[in-house]
């Protein structure tokens, strides 16, 4: 999944070039912020962790390896920042917080009816995802939303490949169950 066009960017980052940082920032900031927002469910926390992630990139730019996979590096740092935040807060945020309605984008289909349907589907999915336990949510975000392969995701989470596969299967089952629950609730309403 490593993008070969990133090598010059990594070289420039290692030299501390601000333009290289801007290019990386432009490429990844939406994905990292979306990942953190979906992971922690709180806009203020997501923004703090987003800032922490990119400042860490700037501080560590000269120490990056030549063959650094920037996507994997950034998502690992973002995820670790969230784990650290959770440890400090001593709370399971997933039990407390519901995603803000305006925090996530609506679907962008051409036809208004299709757009409304797509927006409903996205909202349903976002809510189901937000209701999952943190361990399930992070694996679905990395593999499902961000498209990392399972070996990469296992390395990012610091677990073995088999453990990741089990966690992913469990997370998918939980998501399917949640989606079923959401749909049933809507049908009854």
């Amino acid at each position, binding site marked *: 999944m490593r993008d070969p066009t990133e090598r010059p960017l990594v070289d420039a980052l290692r030299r501390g070039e*601000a333009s290289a*940082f801007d290019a990386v*920032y432009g490429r990844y900031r939406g994905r990292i912020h*979306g990942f953190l927002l979906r992971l922690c469910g709180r806009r203020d926390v997501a*923004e703090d962790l987003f*800032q922490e992630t990119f400042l860490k990139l700037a501080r560590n730019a*000269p120490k990056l390896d030549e063959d650094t996979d920037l996507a994997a590096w950034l998502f690992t740092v973002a995820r670790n920042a969230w784990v650290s935040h959770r440890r400090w807060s001593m709370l399971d945020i997933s039990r407390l917080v519901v995603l803000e309605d305006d925090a*996530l984008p609506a679907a962008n289909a051409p036809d208004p009816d299709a757009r409304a349907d797509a927006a409903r589907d996205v909202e349903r999915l976002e809510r189901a995802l937000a209701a999952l336990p943190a361990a399930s949510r992070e694996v*679905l975000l990395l593999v499902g939303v961000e498209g990392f392969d399972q070996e990469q995701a296992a390395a990012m989470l610091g677990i073995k490949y088999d453990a990741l596969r089990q966690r992913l299967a469990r997370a*998918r089952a939980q998501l399917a169950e949640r989606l079923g629950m959401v749909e049933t609730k809507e049908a009854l309403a």
Partner: protein
Amino acid sequence: MSSVEPKDNRDLVALRELEPVEAPPEVVARVRRQAHAELEVVREGDWLTRASRAWNRVGLPAALTVVVVGYLSWAVGAASALYQ
């Protein structure tokens, strides 16, 4: 493990459709500004590190050599002047 098992990859495909979410513009601008300041510190730090390494490896030995050679020249000159 839950009793509900997804039958295919539709759930993962649907997840792939979720879009990135941009941070508010003021946050984007603030983080960029702070990161540029960090990079400047890093560049300055890097310059100081290189200069310090160059001084330790080349400058200091060269300066010591010049001092020692200078002193020896002076000492030899002074001794030979005294002898004559």
